[in-house]
Each structure stands twice: as structure tokens, then as C-alpha cells.
């Protein structure tokens, strides 16, 4: 677990977020992705590597080139990251409500 890159660290970078948005609609080759940025190609490659390592992107061999597409499951995990925090408070408050209802009857 510790060896794997943190997805939140991955999406903290604006270029990486832009890459995710770009690839979200269709799978693209590294070259096609890089063409959308002013950044040097090796820099884009590095970003792609990070996004792949944390499983936000999945690689697929298409002919001589590798194309990238987003990993829907992992993307959903990011969208839902606030859920556990909310559940934590919801559980606490549900408990509060139960305890105080009993308290009232005493």
C-alpha cells in the first residue's frame, strides 16, 4: 500500500487533472495527449506514468502505440472520497440521536 502512489497527490497537479479530463471522453495515445500541452513530451510522459501507477489511467496496446483510457472505478473512488468523512459524522450523529431519545424517556 505504501509503495503505491497516492491518488490525491496525483490529482493535485493541474496538468494531470487536465490529462484526465482529456482522456475521460475517449482513449488517446501518448502522442495525441502530448499534442494538447505546451509542456515537453518527456514531462507529459512522466505525468502519464504517475497516473498509470496510481491506476487512474489504464494502458492498452493499439498497434505500435500505447493508448490510455481512464479507469472508471478509480475515478469514482475520488468522486466519493468525501463519503467516508460524511459517514463518520453521520454514524456519530445517529448514535447521538439514539442515546438522547433514550435519555428523554428516563
Amino acid at each position: 500500500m505504501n509503495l503505491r502512489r497516492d491518488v490525491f497527490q496525483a490529482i493535485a497537479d493541474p496538468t494531470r487533472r487536465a490529462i484526465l479530463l482529456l482522456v475521460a471522453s475517449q482513449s488517446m495515445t501518448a502522442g495525441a495527449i502530448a499534442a494538447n500541452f505546451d509542456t515537453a513530451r518527456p514531462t507529459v510522459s512522466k505525468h502519464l506514468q504517475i497516473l498509470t501507477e496510481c491506476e487512474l489511467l489504464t494502458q492498452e496496446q493499439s498497434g505500435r502505440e500505447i493508448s490510455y483510457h481512464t479507469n472508471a472505478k478509480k475515478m469514482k473512488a475520488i468522486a466519493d472520497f468525501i463519503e467516508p468523512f460524511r459517514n463518520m459524522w453521520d454514524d456519530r450523529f445517529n448514535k447521538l440521536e439514539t442515546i438522547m431519545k433514550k435519555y428523554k424517556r428516563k
Partner: protein
Amino acid sequence: MERKTKIHAEDGKPDLLITREFDLPLDLLFKAHAEPELVEQWMGTKVLKLETKKHGGWQFETSDPKGNVVFRANGVIHEFVPNRKIIRTFEMENTPFDVQLEFLEFEQLTDDTSKLTMQIVYKSVALRDEMLKLPFAYGLNMAHNRLQDFVQKLK
């Protein structure tokens, strides 16, 4: 059960809003925040100190079943107005996280229902996001540990 608690965390702002409506009269909702033995029950923590007055201090401590302290937090109460509001600071001990400021507002909705609005202000947006992620990261680790236990048993 329906999730009644709402979290509002605006992008790029160092605070968040937690709101919840309770099926409880206002005074009982407030009491649950003011009486140490009640706080202990719903927060699942030991209350070492809870001085419910302006400039009062508080300290909570949670231990694991073996008795090791796993969590300790403390703060100062800035305002304490029964059935209306509590303003306090919150700081986790032995962690790199900076102190946060909490505004709790209590409202009566009907005779039997009430609402709590909790605004938490953090030192930075980064810290807020970090705190939001804590239960998420913890959940991931838990899932991972469970998977590991499961795999161990298969061996």
C-alpha cells in the same frame, strides 16, 4: 438508514460545513454536547476535561481494547451559549495537523426537531483536504487489512 448528515466543502476554501437535522428537541441536542458522560457515549471517546464556559478547556482521549491511547485531542472553548452556540478550537495531539476552529450553531426547528450547523475552519485548503481524506485513507487501509486477513486464511 438514510444519510441525514450533509457536508459542504467548497473548492479552494479552507473550511467546511457539516449540517444535520435531529429528531430531538433543541435542549436535548445541546445537552449531548455539554454533558461529559453523554459526549463520551456518542463520540466513543473518554472525556478527560470539559469546562463548558467561556475560556474553558476540553480534552478527549480514545484507547484501543489493549488500553493504548490511540487518539487524544484538546482545545479551548471560546463561547458557550446554552441552546444556541459553542465556539471552540480542536487540536489533535501528537500529529502534524494544525489547530482548527469550530463554530457550532444549534437551532430549534419544531418542538421535537432541531438542527446543528458546524463550520470548521482550517489553517489552509491543503489541511482541510487532508482532514477530509483521513477517514477515506483509513477506510482504504481497513479494506486492505481485511483483504490481507482473508488471503492469510486461504493459505
